């Protein structure tokens, strides 16, 4: 919620973080966006197959993972809030918590992949599974990349590399991490739920 009278919410003239990350985020969203549109087209051509295959996905683990990533994003919000008050140690701890939740996401996802691969499902099983596997694996790799970025930011924060005045790096990492979260929030209902 935007509250113009509140002093705790500043209005940004430019997006938070380094401008370069926003080019990168835009490109990533575009790549996933094209894939989502392709999914929609492919599904429209074969609704029955998509609906049938979708029944075999583990919606519970998908839902848990959604909560895990949203929680992780919340921890990053706390990290940014902490560094704005100059609390480096606290900032680093919140980032560590966000990374930890990212790890939980990966573990749950690995169980899910394991179940699918054991059932003999591959990219060539059918068009639905091609989309399911490629979208979730691409997203999986983005979670790993996001965790690497956050780890770099955390180490710098722990060493006192950021301050209340200068914390662009924390916002840059947070922006990327929120994008990873956002992608999952679209991906989960699209691939697991909507039918």
């Amino acid at each position, binding site marked *: 919620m935007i509250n113009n009278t509140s002093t705790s919410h500043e209005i940004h003239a430019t997006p938070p973080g380094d401008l370069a990350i926003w080019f*990168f985020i835009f*490109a990533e969203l*575009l790549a996933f966006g094209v894939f989502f549109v392709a999914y929609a087209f492919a599904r429209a051509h074969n609704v029955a197959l998509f609906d049938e295959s979708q029944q075999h996905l583990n919606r519970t683990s998908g839902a848990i993972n959604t909560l895990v990533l949203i929680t992780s994003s919340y921890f990053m919000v706390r990290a940014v809030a902490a560094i704005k008050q100059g609390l480096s140690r606290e900032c680093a701890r919140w980032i560590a918590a966000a990374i930890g939740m990212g790890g939980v996401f990966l573990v749950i996802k690995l169980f899910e992949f394991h179940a699918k691969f054991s059932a003999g499902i591959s990219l*060539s099983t059918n068009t639905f599974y*091609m989309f399911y596997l490629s979208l979730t694996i691409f997203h999986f790799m983005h979670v790993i990349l996001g965790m690497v970025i956050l780890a770099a930011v955390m180490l710098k924060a722990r060493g006192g590399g950021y301050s209340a005045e200068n914390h662009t790096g924390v916002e840059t990492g947070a922006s990327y991490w929120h994008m990873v979260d956002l992608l999952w929030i679209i991906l989960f209902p699209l691939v697991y739920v909507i039918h």
Partner: protein
Amino acid sequence: MQYKSQAVAKPYFIAAIGLFVGQILFGLIMGYQYVVGDFLFPAIPFNVARMVHTNLLIVWILFGFMGAAYYLIPEEAETELFSPKLALLMFWIFLVAGALTIVGYLAVPYATLAKMTGNDILATMGREFLEQPLPTKVGIVIVALAFLFNISMTVLKGRKTSISLVLLLGLWGLAIFFLFSFYNPSNLVMDKYFWWWTVHLWVEGVWELILGAMLAFVLIKITGVDREVIEKWLYIIIAMTLITGIIGTGHHYFWIGTPEYWQWFGSVFSALEPIPFFMMTVFAFNMVNRRRREHPNKAATLWALGTGVMSFLGAGVWGFLHTLSPVNFYTHGTQITAAHGHMAFYGAYVMVNLTMISYAMPMLRGRSANSGPAQIMEMWAFWLMTVSIVFITLFLTAAGILQIWLQRMGTTPLGFMAAQDQVMLFYWLREITGFVFLIGLVLYIWSFFCKKGTAQAAA
């Protein structure tokens, strides 16, 4: 020129231009064979002319890249080249090996050449663009390794900039992916699969890094814009290049026997490949508009802007034209591919080399820019060659569309040769335009010897 050892770039640039002339002459021979099939038969059959045309292109671009690296790296690293002697030795080895290869192509039948050069020991020949005999391929690896050793050592002992790191990454990638030219599995699907690891990952992967680094270097020099700004652009561009280009390899995997998911991967990722090229265009114009000095070398600025525009059109737009698998189903292997190939190679890799040569050659000859009349002549050459390529591309695109319609879409499809007869007019137009290109190239070379006017003294 700030460092003495940068002078080794000069023979590389001269050889590059010399081989460029050869490439164009063989292009004209082939273009004529399109319309008069038995021209120069049996002395130079079409397949040989084509092989010489494409191989010369690759080799002269490699000469250009090496020359560019030898010029750029010492200046970026702020130190003399590790070993100018090694650079010159490699120049002669590469030139002689290249010349012998071309002589081999022209003097004996290809099968005989294969027998003479030990293709039965390790079969690597007979594949498009990688036709070189085994000794030549080994020679390329040796030259590339010595070259990489030389410039990597230079960077290691000097200042490390983003531009030299991106350039090194591109050049190392170039050498590593060339190794797949030695891998020739007997399964035809696997053969084609890995063949693209050299061919595609060169031109739509690591070469783009080299292009970006060379363009960024010239833009810093001619515009005086802050290095930080240019480096940030460079990083975003190469990130986008790699994100789209690596999996974009899939657009070659539609119909070669690979799994069906490549139709999705290839279509989606390669559809995004124009983005880094578009960013390159915006980058070039943006930097020139924000220039903080008026560099006397106007011709180099024109080439740099031209690279941005033409690489976007040729690689980006003409690539996108036939990259989606449902479209490619019809366009695959038609003149549309040839149209794209001509404008993409010219717009990206020919022009970036000519940009670098345009900027560096006057420096290597002891002045910051050529005289006004020489530059005007060079700019005429720019327009003649660039406009010619645009028209060659348009004619080939028209030929391609007609070919697809007659051969693959009508109710009574024609056979390949019958369809070719119907598009003959466009092949004639292409050949005539090719001669205009040659005039541009002659004018370009002439501009190096233009004595009129006074050159700008070295800064």
